[in-house]
């Protein structure tokens, strides 16, 4: 179908040998190794490792780079201290979401931006185009870094076995440099699963020289053996982020949705000086939003999928599903949907139209799981 050959990651041979593969954003990636459900449960209950090298990465430097980043993203970049990170967005002039991202401050005047694989080219062009008026330099470092996510309640203990610094010192949304085995890596305590965990950046590792990437991957698998670490594919990555209530670009957020209706207003600092999308978003805030992204939990059997319609009492269409799946933790269908604001309240009873049947659903808050049992905020388990 596509003329361009699929891109591969450093771990391609490992994936090809052990996983069911899929195509995603121009890459040939693992969909699952053992299965989506066991991989999902490994991350919720213990630890899993994902190859996320396909994601886009840019380094932003220059004396005016903070002003530039404050202009091109919605969160407050001035609030970032060196070796800390935050979730943020890039918006267009209409307030539509260009992408969501994690911005890490590596040092004074040096930032790392990580964004979606599908938006690699689009974002790089957008950054370059908007950097012109600032003294800021944007470098696409995507192809020079291997990136893994090690996620789950046993993520720290796993990586600690092969790290030469104390990882407990890196708090959530903080970063640091360490050695894993004998390879220098950058770590950020972030992720896309709702669980505690790290994202591991193996720098200066082009595809043609995969040794360091393979070394870190294999050493992590070995270190996690006693916790039954599971290599995880894009299938579990999707079900985990959905259960955690996190957006997938292209499904739940697009250039046609704005942060306020997506429930991402917490990363839009409207009191900042001029930034892309500010005026449109201020206007939207004044006028009020008409629809909102909500969580839907199915009360009857049936799995909601993107584009399914959401109805009230099978009388009125009130919205549509943007992501949906079977939840391995809740054992039922769950979805993200945009619904008219009068139906966004927790506990509201709605229907999802699945193949001409109206299946009962309830509006619930994110994340979908019980946060005392799952997720990074759960009670720390006794060590013994």
């Amino acid at each position: 179908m596509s003329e361009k050959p699929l891109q591969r990651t450093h771990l391609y041979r490992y994936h090809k040998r052990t996983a069911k593969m899929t195509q995603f954003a121009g890459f040939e990636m693992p969909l699952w190794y053992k299965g989506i459900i066991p991989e999902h449960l490994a991350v919720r209950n213990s630890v899993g490792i994902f190859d996320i090298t396909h994601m886009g990465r840019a380094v932003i430097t220059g004396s005016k780079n903070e002003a530039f980043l404050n202009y091109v993203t919605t969160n407050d970049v001035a609030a970032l201290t060196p070796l800390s990170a935050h979730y943020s967005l890039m918006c267009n002039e209409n307030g539509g979401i260009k992408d969501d991202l994690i911005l890490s401050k590596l040092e004074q005047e040096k930032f790392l931006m990580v964004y979606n694989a599908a938006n690699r080219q689009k974002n790089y062009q957008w950054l370059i185009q908007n950097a012109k008026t600032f003294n800021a330099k944007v470098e696409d470092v995507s192809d020079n870094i291997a990136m893994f996510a090690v996620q789950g309640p046993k993520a720290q203990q796993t990586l600690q076995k092969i790290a030469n610094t104390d990882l407990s010192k890196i708090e959530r949304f903080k970063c640091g440099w360490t050695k894993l085995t004998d390879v220098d890596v950058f770590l950020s305590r972030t992720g896309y699963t709702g669980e505690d965990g790290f994202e591991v950046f193996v720098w200066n590792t082009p595809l043609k020289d995969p040794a360091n990437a393979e070394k870190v991957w294999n050493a992590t698998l070995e270190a996690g053996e006693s916790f039954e670490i599971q290599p995880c594919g894009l299938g579990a990555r999707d079900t985990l982020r959905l259960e955690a209530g996190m957006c997938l670009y292209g499904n739940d957020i697009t250039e046609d949705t704005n942060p306020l209706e997506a429930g991402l207003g917490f990363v839009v600092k409207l009191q900042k000086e001029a930034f892309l999308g500010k005026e449109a978003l201020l206007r939207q805030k004044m006028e009020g939003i008409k629809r909102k992204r909500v969580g839907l939990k199915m009360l009857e059997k049936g799995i909601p999928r993107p584009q399914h319609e959401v109805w009230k009492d099978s009388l009125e269409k009130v919205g549509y599903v943007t992501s949906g799946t079977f939840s391995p933790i809740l054992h039922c269908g769950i979805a993200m949907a945009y619904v008219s604001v009068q139906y966004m309240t927790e506990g509201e009873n709605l229907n999802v139209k699945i193949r001409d049947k109206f299946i009962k659903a309830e509006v619930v808050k994110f994340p979908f799981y019980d946060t005392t049992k799952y997720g990074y905020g759960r009670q720390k388990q006794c060590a013994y």
Partner: protein
Amino acid sequence: MRVLDYEIPDKLHYSKEHEWVRVEGKQAVVGITDYAQKQLHEIVYVEVTKVGTNIDQFQIMGTVESVKSVSDIFAPASGKIVEVNNELSDSPELLNEDPYDRGWIAKVNLTNFDKDLKKLMSAQEYARYIESLEE
């Protein structure tokens, strides 16, 4: 017989959409093949057309969903659905665990099986078909 990683029982008839038919007099039991369940993986939901419905061969008679995907089940033979496997509602994983026995999907009162049979494959033919798909 077993071909590649797939079980293909000898006495059944097979469709290109990976359903099987086991004829028992004027009735037939239908289901999805080992190949189908391995491709779908982790089946979490099954929906079958109501008992009493008349269906034509290759008409949609249900849906099977894995975590990631949704697939139609096509009737491998024409007839009236007289029974569906209610166990699948609470245990859809039976389709993965035992696709030819406990994971049966429906029983059909056959109406035109002599004609339908011409569009189905024997186990040997289906095995060659699977091999051609895996090439």
